[in-house]
């Protein structure tokens, strides 16, 4: 019997287990999936937690619920991969051999990379919303905040869901407007990029929205430190931006396990072929989701597109056939713009987000690069789709018969 091992039971790992168990099963194959956590988090929901739109129950479920019964689930921390021995070392001292390995250990925040970020003010006036704990701490802070300077900040690229900090700024604008205290809050958006986004067309649309919502933008800001005494962020050029609340997206990195295994780059991402999704240096190791270094967005939608192509490539690999070079970096994401509206953008390695509409069966056209209420409903529906369709690896993601139909047009 051969062993296929999946590291990480988050978005990507769970999808792969659900895809592959139909094809690789006993008596020839055994699939094992390893994760140190008990719970699966719907990370896009972290964006809504601080504004009391979602409650913790909406976004946390048990990992077990989504893993097929014939897949062996191991709930332990992975210490390291020994690629030359085809072996995984677990914290418990156990070892697991593999014939084929899929790495889906994701990315996480590393506030310790920036001086002063995890300092005295951490989770007091310096917050992240990329972790469950951070988003909850921020929710508690915002519930009775009286106003002041709100700074929304990106430390460095790449980050997961690169539009999430912008969405945060938009949602903050409408949150404070609804609380009738928008005039007491000054919102500044600080980015290391030269504009609101990395793709010129989307940047134009987004900067227009920032202006409209009276959100000030500071670009080309490469942070050196958080000054906890004066409550300012300081960049290498000496530029200082004061805050009463700093909502930062710290440096994102792959798991430390890559450093321990000697397999990652300087941010612990695994060098991966961007078309086949195979690790560059290892024949029998494949990588999907946030753990790879491919130049695509680190997003659940990308992971979903990757999972379909990777499934085919894994099957080709085990049958000794050449891999398909098919992945094009396809990403689509809803961008919440506040006031119950959202944008939808769709792009890949080479194509910029286009204006037009994106046909989803059952929900109708969603407008790309134009704010609409439908897009907002799409974003909210995405949570339902995530739990009920995407994780289970269903091929066509939008099944009309089971889609909740948005109430408002």
């Amino acid at each position, binding site marked *: 019997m051969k062993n296929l091992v999946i590291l990480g039971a988050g978005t990507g790992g769970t999808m792969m287990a659900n895809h592959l168990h139909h094809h690789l099963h006993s008596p020839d194959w055994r699939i094992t999936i390893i994760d140190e956590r008990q719970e699966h988090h719907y990370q896009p929901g972290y964006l809504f937690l601080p504004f009391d739109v979602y409650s913790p129950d909406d976004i946390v479920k048990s990992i077990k619920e989504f893993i097929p019964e014939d897949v062996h689930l191991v709930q332990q921390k992975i210490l390291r991969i020994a690629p030359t021995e085809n072996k995984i070392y677990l914290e418990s001292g156990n070892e697991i051999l593999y014939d084929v390995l899929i790495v889906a250990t994701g990315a996480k925040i590393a506030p310790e990379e920036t001086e002063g970020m995890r300092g005295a003010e951490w989770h007091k006036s310096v917050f992240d919303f990329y972790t469950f704990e951070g988003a909850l701490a921020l929710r508690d802070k915002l519930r009775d905040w009286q106003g002041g300077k709100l700074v929304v900040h990106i430390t*460095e*690229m*790449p980050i997961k869901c*690169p539009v999430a900090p912008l969405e945060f700024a938009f949602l903050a604008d409408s949150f404070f407007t609804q609380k009738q205290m928008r005039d007491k809050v000054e919102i500044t958006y600080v980015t*290391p*990029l*030269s504009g609101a*986004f*990395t*793709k010129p067309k989307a940047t134009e649309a987004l900067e227009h929205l920032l202006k409209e919502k009276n959100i000030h933008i500071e670009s*080309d800001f*490469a942070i*050196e430190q958080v000054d906890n005494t004066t409550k300012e962020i300081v960049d*290498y*050029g*000496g530029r200082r931006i004061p805050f009463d609340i700093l909502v930062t997206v710290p440096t994102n990195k792959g798991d430390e396990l890559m450093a321990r295994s000697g397999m990652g780059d*300087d*941010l612990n991402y695994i060098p991966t072929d961007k078309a086949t999704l195979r690790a560059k240096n290892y024949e029998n190791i494949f990588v999907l989701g946030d753990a790879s270094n491919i*130049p*695509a*967005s680190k997003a659940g939608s990308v992971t979903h597109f990757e999972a379909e192509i990777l499934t085919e490539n894994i099957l080709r690999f085990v049958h000794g056939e050449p891999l398909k070079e098919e992945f094009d970096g396809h*990403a689509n994401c809803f961008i919440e713009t506040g006031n119950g509206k959202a944008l939808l953008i769709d*792009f890949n390695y080479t194509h910029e987000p286009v204006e037009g509409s994106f046909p989803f069966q059952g929900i109708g056209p969603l407008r790309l690069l134009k704010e609409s209420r439908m897009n907002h409903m799409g974003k909210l529906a995405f949570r339902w789709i995530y739990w009920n369709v995407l994780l289970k690896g269903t091929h066509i993601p939008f099944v009309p018969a089971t889609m909740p139909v948005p109430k408002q047009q």
Partner: protein
Amino acid sequence: MEKLIAGKSVAVNEEGYLTDFSQWDKSIAEELAHEAGISLSPRHWEVLTYLQNEHQNQVALSIRRIGKSNFVDIKEFYQLFPTAPLKTATKIAGIPKPVSCI
């Protein structure tokens, strides 16, 4: 598009980055530096050459990499090319503006 720099017509993109490195020379660098309000010292030239070599070796340039390069630290990099050093320095060096991953 074409732009006249230091008396030569060179191919540039919308943001003014050279699109053909073979057209780059020192007088072009000096003129581009001048446009950015920088006068090039020997140390500037060392850093520009370093960036050109990295680019040639297909290293993706980022502030983080520069910081870890042991060639120039980020503070000094900012002193040499103020405000947005990577953008400014790559433009003067005649190499593409680094794309930060989306």
